[in-house]
């Protein structure tokens, strides 16, 4: 089987995002990156497929250099190759520009049988990158995939739709986003690999390595633009009440009435 490519994203650690009240932009300095939690099931699926079909797993990420430790961690999980797509020109990319860079990098890694991604990131949260990348590559995409296996050279995918579960047959290569609920067990890194990875560095690719059209990158290549971000005001400063259950319930009912949930 041709190789499997997994795309992962470094996302700010929850709690570390702040809005600059003056400029209405996100303060990104001092942001600590973590692996997008929804990418773990995608990696787990890739590594299970690797065991079953004895194929290679290549992990790529577009992002700043502080994604490197995340990629090294993924190497310790069992990936065969780790690649960082990093260039100042990528800054400010929306999903179209991101998908363009990923599609170009994936193309360069051809032939491949499968590209796996997380369902959505926990920062941008659009869930658009997987189908959009597939569209740019001109190959089929499936979202919310729970299970994937090969039968007579074709992928059989189980995916969750709003109306039920579908079993789909499709010829490789495809892009699939993996359901966050796909696995009960997700492997930890192996000790041996954790030691090995100390000396392992990801391959770093820049614009010049990928034959990219500069017009389609970063802010310039991003038709959607965030013009303002603001924090939603919190209605009251958290009121903490102690007392007897009777007193507390009385207060609760008062609030529920105030919110129009109980009418009397």
């Amino acid at each position: 089987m041709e190789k499997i490519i997994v795309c992962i994203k470094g996302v700010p650690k929850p709690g570390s995002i702040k809005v600059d009240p003056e400029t209405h932009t996100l303060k990104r300095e001092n942001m600590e990156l973590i692996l997008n939690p929804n990418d773990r099931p995608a990696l787990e699926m890739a590594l299970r497929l690797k065991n079953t079909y004895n194929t290679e797993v290549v992990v790529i990420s577009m992002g700043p250099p502080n994604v490197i430790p995340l990629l090294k961690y993924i190497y310790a999980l069992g990936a065969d190759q780790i690649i960082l797509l990093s260039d100042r020109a990528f800054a400010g990319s929306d999903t179209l520009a991101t998908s363009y860079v990923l599609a170009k990098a994936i193309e360069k890694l051809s032939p491949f049988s499968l590209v796996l991604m997380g369902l959505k990131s926990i920062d941008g949260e659009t869930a658009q990158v997987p189908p959009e990348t597939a569209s740019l590559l001109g190959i089929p995409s499936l979202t919310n995939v729970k299970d994937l296996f090969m039968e007579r050279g074709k992928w059989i995918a189980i995916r969750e739709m709003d109306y039920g579960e579908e079993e789909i047959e499709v010829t490789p290569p495809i892009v699939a986003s993996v359901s966050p609920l796909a696995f009960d067990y997700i492997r930890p890194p192996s000790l041996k690999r954790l030691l090995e990875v100390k000396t392992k560095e990801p391959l770093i690719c820049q614009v010049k390595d990928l034959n990219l059209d500069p017009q389609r990158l970063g802010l310039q290549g991003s038709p959607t633009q965030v013009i303002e971000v603001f924090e939603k005001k919190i209605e009251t400063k958290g009121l903490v009440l102690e007392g007897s259950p009777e007193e507390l319930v009385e207060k609760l009912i008062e609030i529920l009435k105030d919110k129009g949930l109980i009418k009397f």
Partner: protein
Amino acid sequence: MFEKIKLEDLSKENILAYGEFYKGELNSSSLEILSPLKEIAQTLNKKLILVSLIGSLENIKDWEEIKKSLADEVWFVINEELKDFREDLYTEVLVKIVKFSQPYGFFFPATKIGMSLAPRVAGALQVGLCAHVNNLEVKDNQIIMARPTYGENIIAKLISKSIPIMATISLGAFGIKYGEKEPSIKEIIFPEDFVWKSKLKIRRFAPSKKKPTKLSTAKVIVAGGRGLKNKETFQKLFELANLLGAEVGATRPVCYEGWVEEERMIGISGVTVRPKVYIGFGISGALQHTVGMENSEFIIAVNTDKEAPLVKIANLALIGDAGKILELLLKNLSK
């Protein structure tokens, strides 16, 4: 039956809304998105058109809804191959319609189908796509779209510089409204040489047994965690939900304990919710849970521990035994 119209005769510069049909039924989310789009269309002096891809006319069960809808026109593409949703073929059909009718905007409900389809269409057209928009306004002739983003109560306002302006619109963000005039219905005729082919083959379909929970769009949620101690106490949440017109949510451990089905899990591995009121009984407020509910408008926490993270982010926290408070609340409410 209706006016048949060729691709090249389609009217231009309209606002298109994707009308999601599945096995003959129009998803109500497609009617929801017409509400804000109608206002936008009127402000910009454009027509609002519902575009639907279907296998055959015979199966359609929702004629009444379509006729009452806010759309000015409904465009159908009808072909046996469109019976099932298959993203590659559906994309090609929609891209053709866009190429010929050059719409000003194209909007999708953020259903699973909408979220699989819209990015493919946007990618093929190389235009921008805003996700999960829950507010739209026109300012200086420009559509400004707002969407909540992860945690921290951060709302982002976006514009899209490419045409058509595209977005998926959050489920439940808008109520369904009806129009005064019946839309005119047209069937788009595709050229003879169009290839109705998909690389996807649906081998099996298992309809969901349970009715899908309305958690993600619920206006009120009563959720429970391990602090409720056992399944019996947890089940009382359903009584409360009934009284408040709420949906029941849960943390991951209690779903795994089997107190309630997994569809009710809120958080990173479950559903993201944004109710007006969220009440958490015996929930610690681990990050994996709170990322799924912290954009709720008003959060109430019931916990014995003053230091629990959910107590910290709550608008109102009641420090006490969750089971007792739940029981007493039910008693008082059913009086």
